[in-house]
């Protein structure tokens, strides 16, 4: 009965269709929304100078994070990203927690994006109800993901490129290249550091907005045609795009809007467009804001479902979800299952709460990622196994990731300490459920079977 085995294996395998451009679109698509809203709360926390300093310091955190996830991701070509790394490097309990953190990072971000789409629609006219647009955007994007990875990420590439282009439209509309005629108020570009250096640390939490989710590129490792090439090229090009985009965004918004007003704006780039009083630019930024939200939600659905699928395939959660669509080759049960969760959080309309839980989950996963990198190089020193990408200056990137992630959590504590305690309580309760009920269903030999067939047994294990 060999065909039965092939049939069963193919049910759990995703199709390899993605190239570097899709990885770029997946990474930038998820994150670009952070430049259209959210990042400006850094100004309220640390002033506009504190904001740009936090933006660059957190940029360092994400460059380091991309370097280490890309190295590990290029070696572990399985769906699940940091989750898949954790299962080989830290064991089932840590893998379960990291998988759950990834799922909630992306589901909460997806709900936040949909809430913003609803809010933007409401801003058009007081008679517009945002709720149907929240549900419609989540339903449409989930259906798109259900129908196929290639199509959904190709659309993501197009709408991400358009959204990024609208930022450039706004930049050129200010005539920034001509100090005499520019509409940017260069003399009042910053309000300095009103809360001193502590304000910069407080700003870290929202500085994460500029890049949150870029590491999700590693989640698509299994679907890359050439993981060793697509992952590093796509992810590092994405990071460069975001660093440039973040700096441009800060420059335009700080130049057009007064710091006090910018710190509390819901749509900073759209508000900056309104300040130009040019109808074409205002229209372009309206479209750009909607597109960036849709691109982000689309990428989040992709990443959250891959993490859930991978956890199910490894029996950390019921195996019911580990089925690939017979025609579209997508993890359709995982995609469908996560839809009502994101709609439920979208219904609440509590943007700051969904965003904070997303950031908390992400930053905690980054801490685990740094620990995994240190362990990975110890278990498999350079030269022992083939790597698609080698992260330079080890262990500096892992240490930077560790230190800056802890500092971000400290920054979060200043305003959202209840959320931190609540979030950790949730993961502790989930761990108790896993240890007391689920762990007996985990086949530990099968759990690391794929890795063992690729690599030698590590020294000391």
């Amino acid at each position: 009965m060999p065909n039965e085995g092939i049939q069963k294996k193919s049910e759990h395998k995703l199709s390899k269709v993605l190239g570097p451009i899709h990885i770029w679109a997946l990474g930038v698509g998820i994150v670009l929304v952070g430049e259209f809203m959210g990042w400006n709360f850094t100004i309220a926390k640390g002033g506009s100078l504190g904001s740009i300093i936090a933006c660059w310091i957190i940029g360092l955190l994400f460059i380091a994070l991309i370097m280490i996830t890309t190295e590990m991701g290029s070696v572990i070509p399985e769906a699940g990203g940091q989750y898949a790394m954790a299962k080989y490097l830290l064991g089932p309990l840590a893998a379960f927690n990291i998988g759950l953190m990834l799922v909630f990072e992306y589901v909460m971000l997806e709900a936040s994006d949909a809430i913003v789409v609803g809010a933007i629609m409401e801003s058009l006219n007081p008679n517009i109800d945002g709720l149907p647009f929240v549900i419609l955007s989540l339903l449409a994007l989930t259906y798109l993901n259900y129908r196929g990875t290639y199509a959904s990420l190709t659309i993501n590439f197009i709408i991400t490129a358009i959204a990024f282009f609208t930022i450039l439209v706004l930049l050129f509309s200010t005539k920034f290249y001509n100090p005499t005629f520019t509409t940017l108020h260069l003399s009042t570009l910053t309000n300095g550091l009103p809360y001193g250096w502590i304000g910069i640390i407080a700003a870290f939490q929202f500085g994460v907005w500029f890049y949150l989710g870029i590491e999700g590129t590693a989640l698509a490792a299994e679907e890359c045609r050439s993981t060793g090439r697509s992952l590093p090229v796509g992810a590092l090009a994405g990071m460069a795009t975001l660093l440039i985009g973040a700096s441009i965004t800060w420059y335009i918004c700080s130049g057009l809007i007064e710091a006090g007003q910018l710190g509390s704006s819901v749509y900073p780039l759209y508000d900056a467009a309104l300040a130009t009083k040019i109808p074409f630019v205002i229209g372009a930024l309206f479209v750009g804001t909607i597109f960036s939200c849709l691109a982000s939600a689309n990428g989040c659905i992709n990443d959250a479902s891959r993490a859930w699928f991978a956890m199910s395939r490894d029996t950390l959660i019921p195996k019911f979800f580990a089925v690939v669509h017979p025609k579209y080759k997508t993890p359709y049960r995982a995609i469908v299952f996560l839809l009502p969760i994101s709609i439920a959080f979208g219904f609440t309309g509590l943007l700051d709460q969904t965003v904070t839980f997303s950031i908390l989950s992400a930053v905690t996963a980054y801490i685990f990622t740094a620990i995994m990198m240190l362990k990975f190089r110890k278990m498999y020193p350079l030269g022992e196994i083939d790597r698609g990408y080698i992260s330079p200056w080890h262990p500096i990137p892992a240490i930077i990731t560790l230190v800056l992630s802890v500092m971000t959590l400290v920054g979060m504590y200043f305003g959202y300490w209840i959320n931190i305690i609540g979030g950790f309580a949730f993961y502790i309760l989930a761990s108790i459920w896993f240890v007391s009920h689920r762990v007996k269903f985990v086949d530990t030999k099968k759990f690391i079977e794929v890795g063992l067939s690729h690599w030698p047994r590590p020294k000391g294990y």
Partner: protein
Amino acid sequence: MNYWTMVNYVAWISCIILFLIFALDVIKTEYERYKILQKKNLGEGDSNAE
């Protein structure tokens, strides 16, 4: 009824139509999968025994 209220109705109706299309697609997929598995006498190999 003004123009913007109409927009709300269109959005809600689109939600319902899309939901129905999506739900039917999922039900059809599950049914076809069930039939194939039944035919090949594989049973529900991918669901847990617990």
